[in-house]
């Protein structure tokens, strides 16, 4: 079911103003935390709520915070990952544009929980407007004494900075993001050491997604039990789904985890665009394996999607109809991943290049017998063999497409043309 926690005030154009935000109970959680909770209690609350990272990996947020060493003399940093770049995903942008104070408040609470006095919000470079909204919200918070020195007279200091990127998908990966934030090239770091031990500037760091942080104030206000009661047994709470592609009413929808995909597509999304037949669904952003039409009743939660052979990912549901050539879809995606590979690991750097060439030539009608086997082997070569998940992300949709639509690829090679081919026209 649709359930608006994050989106409670999303339609209120004044929500971006701090006064409106506060009149809706904003910054109450921050005040409560500062005045009456110990950092460990905040972390406990988070653990109890069962909130999992909404960036794609789904790692429990409270657990992540608890990894920060208690006795490190180094400063700690909180970083909000707003480098939203996974194709199909456009939810964080909406939160920053329409409810930036919720993100600020969530960042503040998370910072306090890990003992950080300096938080950064890394916004992708193209998001000039969302970044400006975040900066405005932070300025407002400073002017009200909600950020800065001795907040709410608690003696706690917190500085918050918006940092903008420069157009690199890889910077959504947390270690590459940290490098980028340090002014380096956005290349992933080797783990261990993990960011919780040696992150930003070599200091303990937590990196959380915008959506994860934005819901934190609600969890504090309403209590972990309340939040944990929403969703399924293992997938707690709500999640924003970005619905795009061949669908009547694309958009961002907040659903209770465990809601059926068909509810999102049909009840909220209004069904297929122009009544065409469904061919495939990418359920969690471009790097997740495809679902087939017969899987449309899969509940949208971490476990059910995994059982269906895919992933919840970032919650970006891309709907593809019968007119679409799957080779063309895959070509689009591999072009993207090749463009975004940082170039550090051999398999990803060279592999994505070769995949683009091979898939490109099949799409161009120049495919040769044996190409599919070659693609299989390159995919095997990349999957699990790189420092960061970009390699896996590039390969998963390809492997899935080759599994589910292999005939279509073979047809392309044999007949040097698409099985179905529509030049999609914009209106």
């Amino acid at each position: 079911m649709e359930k608006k926690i994050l989106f409670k005030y999303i339609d209120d154009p004044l929500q971006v103003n701090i006064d409106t935000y506060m009149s809706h109970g904003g910054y109450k959680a921050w005040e409560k935390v500062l005045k009456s909770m110990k950092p460990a209690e905040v972390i406990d609350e988070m653990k109890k709520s069962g909130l999992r990272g909404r960036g794609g990996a789904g790692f429990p947020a409270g657990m992540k915070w608890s990894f920060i060493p208690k006795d490190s003399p180094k400063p700690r940093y909180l970083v909000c990952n707003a480098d939203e770049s996974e194709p199909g995903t456009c939810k964080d942008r909406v939160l920053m544009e329409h409810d930036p104070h919720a993100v600020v408040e969530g960042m503040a609470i998370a910072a306090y929980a890990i003992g950080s006095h300096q938080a950064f919000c890394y916004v992708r470079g193209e998001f000039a407007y969302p970044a400006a909204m975040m900066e405005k919200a932070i300025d407002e918070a400073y002017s009200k004494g909600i950020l800065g020195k001795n907040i709410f007279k608690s003696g706690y200091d917190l500085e918050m900075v918006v940092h903008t990127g420069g157009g690199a998908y890889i910077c959504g990966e947390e270690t590459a993001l940290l490098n980028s934030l340090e002014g380096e090239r956005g290349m992933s770091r080797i783990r261990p050491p993990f960011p919780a031990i040696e992150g930003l500037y070599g200091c303990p760091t937590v990196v959380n997604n915008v959506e994860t942080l934005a819901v934190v104030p609600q969890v504090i206000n309403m209590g972990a039990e309340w939040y944990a009661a929403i969703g399924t047994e293992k997938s707690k709470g709500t999640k924003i789904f970005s619905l795009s592609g061949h669908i009547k009413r694309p958009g961002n929808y907040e659903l209770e985890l465990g809601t059926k995909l068909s509810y999102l597509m049909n009840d909220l999304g209004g069904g297929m665009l122009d009544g065409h037949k469904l061919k495939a669904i990418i359920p969690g952003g471009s790097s997740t394996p495809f679902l087939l039409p017969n899987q449309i009743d899969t509940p949208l939660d971490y476990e059910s999607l995994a059982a269906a052979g895919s992933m919840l990912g970032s919650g970006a549901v891309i709907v593809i109809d019968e007119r679409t050539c799957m080779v063309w879809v895959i070509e689009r995606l591999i072009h993207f991943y090749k463009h975004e590979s940082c170039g550090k690991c051999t398999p990803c750097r060279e592999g994505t290049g070769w995949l683009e060439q091979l898939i490109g030539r099949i799409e161009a009608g120049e495919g040769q017998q044996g190409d599919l086997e070659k693609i299989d082997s390159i995919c095997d070569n990349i999957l699990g063999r790189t420092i960061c998940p970009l390699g896996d992300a590039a390969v998963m949709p390809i492997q899935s497409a080759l599994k589910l639509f292999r005939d279509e690829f073979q047809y392309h090679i044999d007949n040097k043309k698409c099985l179905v081919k529509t030049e999609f026209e914009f209106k």
Partner: protein
Amino acid sequence: MILKEKAVAEIKSRMVRYPHRKSAILPALTVAYRQEGHLSPALYREIAKIIEVPYIEVAEAASFYTMFPKEPVGKYLIQVCHNISCALLGADSLIHYLEEKLGITKGETTPDDIFTLISVECLGSCATAPMMQINDKFYENLTREKVDRILEELREQARNGKENTV
């Protein structure tokens, strides 16, 4: 100096917000890009001087981040998303339409230096596809009619010599 006083002041004000000034490289590149529309080695040199880091550190970072054009572009840089969600809703035809309207092919700049057309990867505007970004502004749910209007408005702005609205 290519960077104007205001830009230098902004870089400096951003620099002090970080525990290590090297972090200001990306924000500084952004400031420089906003002023000039593209980046160049001369700008890297100025930035390196302001932030007090070696020139090469600015240059290597700049070369990694593809958002900043490294060659001069028109007054308005049109970036059309060609990634999957937009492509499903006709991004390719949008690009062709723009090519026809502007009389240039992708990657080119109009002779009057007003428009440069390129295609880019996903810009996080998937539920409002197809879309394009012109300088820093997103234009979403594009239709032919909307594109016509946008181009007309921008042309008008350029004719009136208005400042870059970014």
